[in-house]
């Protein structure tokens, strides 16, 4: 019963409100429009047009300025560099490069061929040439001195990353073992440039720091 009374009374209330509101809502939009010239044929006051023009200019200027500001915020060198912002690509390039460095700088006296193969897979361009020039020496040394070198990456950080090229700082630890002698550990820091070729990151330049 209560509900029904509530429902019944509702339309009445609405009607009342509508009656109250109608005169107001009809008058208010007509007020300014009246002075705008709809009623006064022929003689229109100038100020609405000036106001309109000023408003237009102000809106255009504000819109343009905000748009330019937004573009400026976006087009910084910060956004062009994807290091860390693209977490997946950063992890991938770090992993690929760390892996590659571990492989090409690890060899045993009898396993230099493996390392050579690895180098051909993970190096390209200038880095491959440099490596090839160096490796003859390394091969001889490894065989003569029964030298085993094990390299692993302890830290690697990406300084610059785009869709197809990356620049990294890599900390390495290298363990040298000569047969019959205690192992020695040395540290090395490299600056590495890598390029994405055929879906794989290849090292194109290696610099020592």
């Amino acid at each position, binding site marked *: 019963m209560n509900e029904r009374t509530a429902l019944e009374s509702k339309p009445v209330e609405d009607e009342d409100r509508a009656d109250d509101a109608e005169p107001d809502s009809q008058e208010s939009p007509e007020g300014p429009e009246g002075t705008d010239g709809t009623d006064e044929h022929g003689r229109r006051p100038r100020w609405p047009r000036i106001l309109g023009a000023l408003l237009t200019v102000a809106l255009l200027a504000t*819109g*343009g300025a905000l*748009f330019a500001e937004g573009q400026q915020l976006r087009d910084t*060198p910060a956004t062009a560099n994807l290091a860390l912002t693209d977490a997946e690509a950063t992890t991938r390039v770090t992993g690929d490069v760390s892996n590659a460095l571990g492989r090409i700088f690890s060899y045993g006296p009898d396993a230099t061929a493996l390392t050579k193969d690895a180098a051909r897979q993970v190096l390209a361009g200038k880095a491959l040439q440099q490596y090839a020039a160096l490796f003859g020496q390394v091969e001889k040394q490894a065989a003569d001195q029964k030298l085993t070198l094990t390299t692993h990456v302890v830290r690697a950080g990406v300084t610059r990353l785009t869709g197809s090229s990356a620049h990294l700082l890599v900390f390495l630890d*290298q363990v040298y073992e000569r047969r019959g002698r205690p192992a020695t550990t040395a540290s090395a820091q490299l600056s590495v440039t890598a390029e994405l070729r055929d879906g794989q990151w290849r090292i194109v330049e290696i610099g020592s720091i």
Partner: protein
Amino acid sequence: MTLRTRHLGGWAVLLAAALVCSLGTWSYAQARSDRTLSYAKARDAALAQGKRHLATLNSLDGKDATSVTTGLRAWRDSSTGPLHDQLKRSSATDARTLTTAGDTARGKVTSAALTALDDRTGTAELIATVDVRVTPRTGTPGIQRKRFTATLARTGHGWKVKALTAMRAGDGG
């Protein structure tokens, strides 16, 4: 009729202007609230400030007591949290030993990169190689090549060094 068209034209122009304004506002708001953009900026700020602080923390003018005190104050200004506390605690003894030794060190970051960044909590991991040119009170200067890992934290005055570890060979595990 012409009056009416002109009238409508005026409204259309105004409407178009309002549209341009709202588009501009939207574009700007979008750029401001861009998470990737703010993350990228935080990354660059952390790296730049981290490098600067690392150079400071590897530099000290050991000429006299005043210059040592100034240097130690600079160390404290570059650090925060645990490192800051540690430097503060040992500042008196540090000042004495460093003044007695009288060595002057000038650190230069040769390369640095962030390995991690948490924009939300304001922490970052930095790796860097630093050349420290040490000039003893007597004797010839030499260059020490060092590598560091540092934890950075965002403070009210920018990114500062919270923890600093010199990594020797074999330290990385």
